[in-house]
Every structure is written in C-alpha cells, then in structure tokens.
C-alpha cells in the first residue's frame, strides 16, 4: 500500500515536472534587424517602445556597436519590410535589413 502511494506520488511529480519544463522549450523567433544612425542608447529608446507595443514581441535588446536591434518574440511573429521601415522612421533611424531565426527559448 505504502509502495503504491510512493509510486503514485512519483508519477504525479514527474507529470507536473514535465508540464513545468515544457513551456521553457517552447519555440520562439529571433530577429536581427540592421539599422543605421544608432549613436546613443537614450535616443534608441523609441525603438524599444515601438517594438514592445507589437503583439508577440517579448524582449528587445540593442547592440549599438554593431548597429543591430535584437527582437525576441513568439514563434509566429512576423515583420514586413515596409512595417519595419515605418517603425524605424517613426523612431528617427533608418532600417536596412533583417534576419529571422527560430529559437528554443
């Protein structure tokens, strides 16, 4: 009887652990966006603000030395060139190109 309780508990914890771990292996997307004019972090804040308003965007970082904006989002997140061009123009910078890669978060 006692052994059956331990086995059931183990099964329960294993299943719980599986569901707890699973979301952290969810698919996501990573965008590397090349932009020109990125010369100061304070001025680049507008880019962060604009991206974070887009549904599906989770995180953003800006590599000023490389002139790259890194956007992490949900796996089905997509951008069109025209959309990014407008977003960067509204933020005061020039969009050049972007690359999307799938990631395991």
């Amino acid at each position, binding site marked *: 009887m006692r052994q059956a309780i331990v086995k059931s508990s183990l099964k329960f914890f294993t299943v719980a652990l599986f569901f707890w771990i699973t979301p952290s292996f969810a698919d996501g997307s990573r965008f590397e966006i090349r932009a020109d*004019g990125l010369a100061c972090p304070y001025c680049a804040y507008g880019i962060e603000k604009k991206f974070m308003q887009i549904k599906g965007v989770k995180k953003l970082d800006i590599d000023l030395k490389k002139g790259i904006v890194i956007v992490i989002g949900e796996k089905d997140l997509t951008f069109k060139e025209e959309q990014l061009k407008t977003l960067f123009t509204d933020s005061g910078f020039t969009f050049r190109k972007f690359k999307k890669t799938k990631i395991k978060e």
Partner: protein
Amino acid sequence: MIFSPFKSLKFIGLSIGLLYTSTAIAHDPVFSPGPHVLFKDGIELHLVNKNSKSDNLSQNEQSLAFKYGVTGDWVVGLELPYQPVNNPFSSGKAVGDAILSTKYRFWRDDAPGVQKSAAVFMKLKLDTAGSKSGTDTTDSLVGFAYGYESLDWYRWASFRYRFNQGKTLETIGQLNRGDRWFTDLAMGYRFQINDYREPDTVWLLELNGEFSERNSINGIDISSTGGEQWFVSPGLMWTLRNVAIKAGVQVPIISDLNGNQEETDYRTFLEFEWHI
C-alpha cells in the same frame, strides 16, 4: 529707497536672459540647441533648474516642459517657468510666461553608428503671466541647428535669433527691447560605449555667443543695454535607457557689454529628462 525704472529694466533684461536661451532636447548640448527631436507619439518631460550670478544679482529659475513627437521628425512642446517676480527689491517667485515650441528635423543622414541631421525650430513666449512675473510681451525665437553624432564623437552648431516685442510703460513711454541672437558650437565625447541598458555618459564642451541690441525708450537708446558675451561651457549628459540628467556651467570669457552693466559671473544648468 527710490524705485528706478532703469534699474527695473536692467533686472527685466537679466531675467529675460535666463528665459528660453536653451532649446535643448534629448541628446542635444546643455546650453545650446541641437537637431534632436522625439520618436513619433513619444512624450518627453523636462525639469530644469537654472542659476545666473552676476556682481550683485543672483537668480534662480525652475521650469517644467512637456514635448510631444508628432512624427519622427517633428516635435511640439509647452514650457512653464517658475521664476523671480519682476521687482528688484523682492525675492518672490511666480509662474512666468508660457512658452510654446516646435522643432522640425528636415534632414537626416544615417550610417552605421553615425547620425548627421539638421533642424529648424521656433519658440513663442506668450504673454500669460502679465507684468508681475512675465515680460508683458509676446516674443519669438527662430533658429537652426546641425548635429553630428557617433558612438564616440559628437559635434553641433546652431544659430538663434530672438525677436523682442516692445511695450508701453506708463511712467516712461514706449520701450523697444533690443533683439538678441545667439550662436553656438559644441562638441562631445563618449569615453566608453556600454550596453543599451547600462548607463551612458557623454562629456560636453560648448562655446556660446550672445549678442543683444540696445533697448530704447521713445526712440532714444538706453546706454547701459545691449552688448556681446561669450561663454565656455563644460557639461555632461548621463543617461540610463529613458532617463537623462544634463548638467553644465557657463563661464564668461568675453564680456563686451554697453555702458554700465553687471557682467555675468557664471550660469549653471541642471536638467532631468524622462522619455515616456
């Protein structure tokens, strides 16, 4: 104590000197304007403290300003100063004339890590505070600014012209306040470029020139008004993501003021800026 209208005029002149001489926004120099605007639909909040010290007069002024990015190249703003009342024998303060401002960046050239741009701007000081803490006039300022920014070096140049409206003084007559113009050169250097979410510091050095035409009453020039002043102004800009602190001190290197006027000893500027 006899109230001297001319002493009062001098006081008004000094007070106006503190008013809207800076049209800085975001990553612009401390004492002079640059071509920076704000991202579309962005809001910028400014809290400013200015001090000016001359031989016998020390003045302190605070101001609160809001800026709004209409587009990625066009910003509009409203500024409310809190300044000394127009009475040389009083130390009281009151809300001064409201100032409307706008800036349009008409040229931008971006390269990797470099942005060159140029903008025109305009300010309109309204007559909202009356004679107690305002100038009783509606004055305007127009200007042009150029800026070069990179990950290490910065440089700016600007020109501003202020049209001062005349007014009628009951006891004296028609006062014509001389126009003023300003020219500025500034450079900045960032010793280290940090990550986006880390603090960033840019050290600044400016050269600011100010030129005032004489005031006149009933067409007769007032001898102790107008002249030329040049300042060297070290400063810094510290930012952390969407928060900025700007500080600087203006030290006169040339004071060629007409007649018997009090020369500026120094001016200080401290600003807190927040991008919302």
